[in-house]
């Protein structure tokens, strides 16, 4: 005990500065939660916790997808439209047989996994193009994925308008689909279980496979990876395909969670996902990032949003708080790697 206290209090000024810089974001977030709890003690309750976890689930799946791309020193602006694409595809294939305005009036009921697979394949395909363009032409991922974002919106809207009832929100989902996404097991929401499984899967992939280690190497020092015989091209494309598959899963879940899908679904989701990664310590300078970081980042954002809404803070103020947190987090991250001259 005494050694702990000396450790805590015998820190030099510089060490304290480092401590604050390295943990500032956690300190700020802790302070916000504290304010929320003081104003509304009811914030600490099982239903609130369940809501926060449920709202975090799809975000986590998307964040884990884009996190791999960020580890490669990249980014993905097409995430949101990709989610929209997956949501529209899944919803169009999973409507109740007795629903009045079906996208495909004649289609038989499909097994639940077929639309899921379709969503993941479509998103994986477009994301693979992103990865290929980035690796082949050394285009900055910001630009490559911006182009994809716009292109996808066009494709998505054309598909959306091509259904039998014309361009109108695709609702009337199959009850099996709704139950799968919005049900629960022993009080634990299915969404949370699915997100947990996805996180475990990604963790194994990142930490226990050659692919994962190569991803970190390519992100950390592409040259060293090349010289050591890592195939940078295939590693990059695989990371993007994986990201696309995650967006596909996210979009599939999102359509049922919201209850309908249209060509605007998913708009802007990339910003939430990227922000969560950055706040969770997945560095834009590449090669650094953990699954636990993505989880922490997503949870923090959901808690803050939920908490601020809980105490009735105006939505516009919430934007200011969130925006400032992102910039502060990125500045602190950059400061760690800044070379002093």
């Amino acid at each position, binding site marked *: 005990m005494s050694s702990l206290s000396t450790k805590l209090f015998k820190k030099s000024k510089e060490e304290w500065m480092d401590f604050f810089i390295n943990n500032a974001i956690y300190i700020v977030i802790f302070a916000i939660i504290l304010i929320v709890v003081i104003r509304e003690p009811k914030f600490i309750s099982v239903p609130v916790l369940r809501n926060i976890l449920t709202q975090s689930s799809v975000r986590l799946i998307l964040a884990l997808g884009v996190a791999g791309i960020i580890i490669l020193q990249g980014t993905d602006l097409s995430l949101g439209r990709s989610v929209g694409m997956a949501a529209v595809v899944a919803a169009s294939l999973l409507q109740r047989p007795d629903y009045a305005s079906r996208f495909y009036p004649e289609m038989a009921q499909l097994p639940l996994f077929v639309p899921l697979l379709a969503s993941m394949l479509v998103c994986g395909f477009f994301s693979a193009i992103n990865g290929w363009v980035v690796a082949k032409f050394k285009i900055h991922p910001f630009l490559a994925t911006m182009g994809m974002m716009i292109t996808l919106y066009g494709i998505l809207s054309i598909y959306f308008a091509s259904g039998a009832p014309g361009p109108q929100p695709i609702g009337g989902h199959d009850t099996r689909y709704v139950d799968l996404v919005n049900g629960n097991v022993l009080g634990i929401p299915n969404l949370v279980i699915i997100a947990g499984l996805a996180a475990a899967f990604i963790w194994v992939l990142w930490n226990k496979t050659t692919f994962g280690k*190569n991803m970190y190497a390519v992100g950390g020092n592409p040259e060293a990876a090349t010289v050591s015989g890592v195939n940078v091209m295939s590693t990059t494309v695989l990371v993007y395909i994986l990201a696309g598959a995650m967006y596909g899963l996210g979009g599939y879940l999102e359509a049922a969670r919201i209850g309908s899908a249209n060509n605007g679904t998913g708009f802007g989701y990339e910003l939430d996902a990227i922000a969560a990664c950055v706040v969770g310590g997945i560095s834009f300078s590449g090669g650094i990032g953990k699954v636990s970081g993505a989880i922490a980042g997503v949870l923090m954002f959901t808690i803050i949003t939920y908490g601020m809404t809980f105490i009735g803070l105006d939505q516009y103020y919430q934007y200011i708080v969130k925006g400032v947190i992102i910039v502060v987090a990125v500045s602190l991250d950059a400061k760690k790697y800044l070379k002093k001259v």
Partner: protein
Amino acid sequence: MQEEYLLRIKDVSKSFSGVTVLNKVCLNIRPGTVHSLMGENGAGKSTLMKCLFGIYRQDEGQFFLDGEEFNFEDPKHALENGVSMVHQELNQVVQRTINDNIWLGRYPRKRGFVDEKKMYADTKALFERLNIHLDPRMLLDKLSVSQRQMVEIAKAVSYDAKIIVLDEPTSSLTDNEVKMLFDIIGVLKKEGVGIVYISHKMEEIFEISDDVTVLRDGSHIGTEKIENLTMEKIVNMMVGRDLEERFPPKTNVPGDVHMTVKNLSTKYAPFVQDVNFDLHKGEILGVAGLVGAGRTEMVEALFGARTLESGEILIDGKKIDNSTPHKAINNRFALLTEERRQTGIYPVADITFNSTISNVKSYKNKFGFLVDHKMKEDTDKQIGAMRIKTPNRKELIRSLSGGNQQKVIIGRWLLTNPDVLLLDEPTRGIDVGAKFEIYQLIIDLAKNGKSVIVVSSEMPELLGITNRIMVMSNGRVSGIVNTEETTQTEIFNLSAKYLNNNREAEV
């Protein structure tokens, strides 16, 4: 039959756009020996190594490994064939562990997953063999440079390297770390590995070499067993004696002291420590030293581009504040940077933009807008005065030759009317004819009362155009000599003066 030599490099030549960098160079490495490769900066050592590793393709000449001719396609190909290089700038994934780095690109697998246990055990065994005491699970970020270097050597050994090239491996090591490195080299020698050792440190060369090869200006000067060599002899082989008449007459006359620098030290690495000197009006002061001696950092510190730990700069006896480049420019300093392409020119802009950008304030009219015709006039004036070869001022600077680009940048600084000119490698990458013109320009500037500092890696250049030479070694000034009275050997010895000192011990 056992080959006498593990690696033979035979008559390798290489030239870049007509300039010969290597001229029929030979190098033969015996198994189980350390072969030192020596030569001044620019002698061709690194070009030779780049040819060996397939980064460049030689114009002529052959490489033989164990008697068989080969040409590596890239460093990875070389690595797989047992030839590896540990660079001065280590190319590693510092965010990852030792394990991850050593086995990168060939992770052992078990049932589809990376076999961490095998990786750990293999690294452990490797480290034991080489007597390295590090936990393979440590992040590279947390290691010192010498430890990271050992990891890199271990990685080479793990590829069953027969030849390991060590490029200035001790440049940032303490005495103790050097000893550890030499122990590892000893183990490798016993295993029959051939080591190519590139270093400027004489004492080390005599301590660990078996053979020494000296290059000068891209030519093979000689190969000797270490027993047959003395320090004097190596220096003579390296620097030669002839100093050709490639320089205009020094017509400048240094006057009174203009700038005084006291106790200048930088706060962050690479360090400059306790630099003191005077610069006279109309003087050209040369700065000599090896790569990494802190010359560039010293002029950057004077210009406010580096954070100072201590030090003052006095102009005509009055203290000035040069804590940022902006302030330095206001104090009439100008810095010509070493990397012209990266930090000097704006390649996609025209000559007018490149000439006037540092002085752009002075072209404002009373409404704060820039006056085009003044900028054009000034640019034309510079093109004429410096004899810049270009069709007109609208030409993009990147379409000019290196020498003419350099003239544009010197002209840019002259438009700010500086008193103190800091020129960092002003003739790097410039052909001989253009060099002469740059020398003339520098001497004329000094003649007109400017105080000039010239950092250069070319000894003849320093001897040819300066009045005095300040020699730096390991971040410190090891001596200031009169150009008329000094010799290349004296400067070389001064350059190496602080090389073996342990910096940590001094602090």
